[in-house]
């Protein structure tokens, strides 16, 4: 017993994010297994199907397809890695600008509306119903409508993403405002804060974690919304070249573009997670 009590305090056992690192090799192994499964399946398809390149190309076929992306730079472009890189850079930049524009505009509108409605009971009574009605319209069903309003322009794509983001963020932000502890708001009142000051100094900071959590979901959906808009209407962007590749029946190129989009989605999610962590350091977590 005495020995135990005299022992120097042990370093605290790792919990939370640090403990997750132990699971990383396993996650990597799973990815390798999936890759191997793809390879085996493609070998099987190659042995039995008439057009394996359409049905399921092998990972090597996909890598070999990279130069063919240069086609999207226009007819007569040399099919080189350099030109393919140019194509990737251009269409990625277009898509990302659209996505970020839509997120910024839609996010600002969504949060702004939620703050207005969270503030005023009267505004809430008048506008909450109609806004929730907007929320339950299937988003993709509105795409043709945006097409007739904007044609196949970038403005149309940005507007559509912004609309989708605003409607999702609005609901999330309003809920976040409602979940701010009434006790803490009352506490601020007794410390001399006016209603407006409570809103600014308590409600706004306290709603951030839930808002940011919701934003990660919205971000994933925003990519899907963007691609849908580009399938139908755009002259450029990743969605556009994805649909073109499909029209050429070039599955390898389609897979390349999908992998690219996955990569971007992952990067965006990690970036947001990083921002989220610095914004929510204070949030009590269950251990």
């Amino acid at each position, binding site marked *: 017993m005495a020995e135990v009590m005299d022992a120097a305090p042990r370093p605290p056992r790792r919990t939370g994010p640090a403990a997750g690192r132990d699971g990383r090799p396993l996650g990597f192994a799973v990815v390798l297994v999936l890759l191997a499964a793809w390879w085996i399946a493609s070998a099987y398809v190659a042995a039995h199907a008439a057009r394996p390149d359409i049905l399921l190309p092998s990972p090597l076929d996909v890598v070999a397809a990279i130069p063919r992306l240069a086609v999207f730079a226009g007819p007569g472009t040399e099919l080189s890695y350099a030109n393919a890189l140019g194509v990737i850079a251009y269409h990625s930049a277009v898509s990302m600008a659209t996505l970020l524009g839509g997120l910024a505009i839609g996010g600002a509108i969504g949060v702004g509306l939620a703050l207005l409605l969270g503030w005023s009971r009267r505004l809430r009574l008048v506008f909450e119903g109609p806004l929730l009605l907007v929320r339950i319209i299937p988003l993709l069903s509105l795409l043709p409508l945006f097409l007739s309003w904007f044609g196949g322009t970038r403005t149309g794509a940005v507007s559509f993403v912004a609309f989708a983001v605003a409607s999702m963020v609005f609901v999330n932000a309003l809920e976040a405002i409602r979940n701010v502890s009434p006790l803490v708001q009352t506490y601020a009142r007794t410390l001399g804060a006016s209603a407006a000051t409570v809103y600014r100094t308590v409600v706004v900071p306290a709603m951030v974690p839930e808002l940011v959590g919701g934003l990660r979901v919205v971000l994933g959906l925003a990519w899907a919304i963007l691609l849908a808009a580009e399938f139908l209407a755009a002259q450029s962007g990743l969605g556009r070249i994805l649909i073109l590749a499909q029209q050429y029946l070039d599955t390898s190129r389609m897979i390349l573009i999908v992998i690219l989009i996955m990569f971007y989605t992952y990067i965006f999610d990690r970036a947001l997670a990083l921002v989220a962590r610095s914004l929510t350091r204070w*949030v009590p977590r269950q251990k």
Partner: protein
Amino acid sequence: MLAAQTAGAPPHIRLQGVRKVMKTERGAEIVALSGVDLDIAEGEFIAVIGPSGCGKTTLLNQIAGLAEPSQGRILLHGKEVHGPGRDRGVVFQGDAIFYWRTVRRNVEYGLEIQGMPKAERRDHAERYIRLVGLADFAELYPKELSGGMRKRCQIATVLANNPDVLLMDEPFGALDYPTKCQLQEEVLRIHTREPRATVFVTHDIEEALFLADRIVVMERGRIRRIVDVPFGRPRDSALRIEPAFSDLKAELWALLEGGHAPAARGHDG
């Protein structure tokens, strides 16, 4: 300020026939307070004791202005109370704390919204952080504190705001005995230095006796009895072991125990 203490002046806080009826979610009515009359003098320390659910928190909320009485009125310096204000600081029974602010910035909150310049409010807050023994923890977030430390942070925040009236709802309920005693003595010191009308809700008879000038014993929404505490001030921990202290403690015990059948019990047992 002391000039207000002339003979004809109204008491600091006056509760007149206060009744509070609450509605439950199912529509039933609960009489949380009824016929409560109480005058609290300038600088007087009142402790409120009574069984759980007897209306102590409700009483405090009424004075704080967090709910309007169903009947009767609450006067502060002769003026009726409507709504909360920084003149009445409240230490809540629950975990009232700004989770996104460090201890230091919690304590600064009231000063900050008043517009006190940064350097000045830092010094001011520092005093109260020391007072409650959180000097080494000033840069931590509330999630990194224990329950008792969060309570001390709340007390420091309320005191730093320099309220006219102090309303405390079982502030030391979550603390260990030595810390509790230490903070009780701290409360006494503060009260001696800057006496302000205080209403202190507690379950702890000894705490009530040690701190208060008068003890309000409540039972089912009513004031059952108001007991005068005869000990002078300043008080120190020696008081806790005086025979008179023990006697009064036993008397209050009997009063509380016999709460539901007052006629059936004597004081001689």
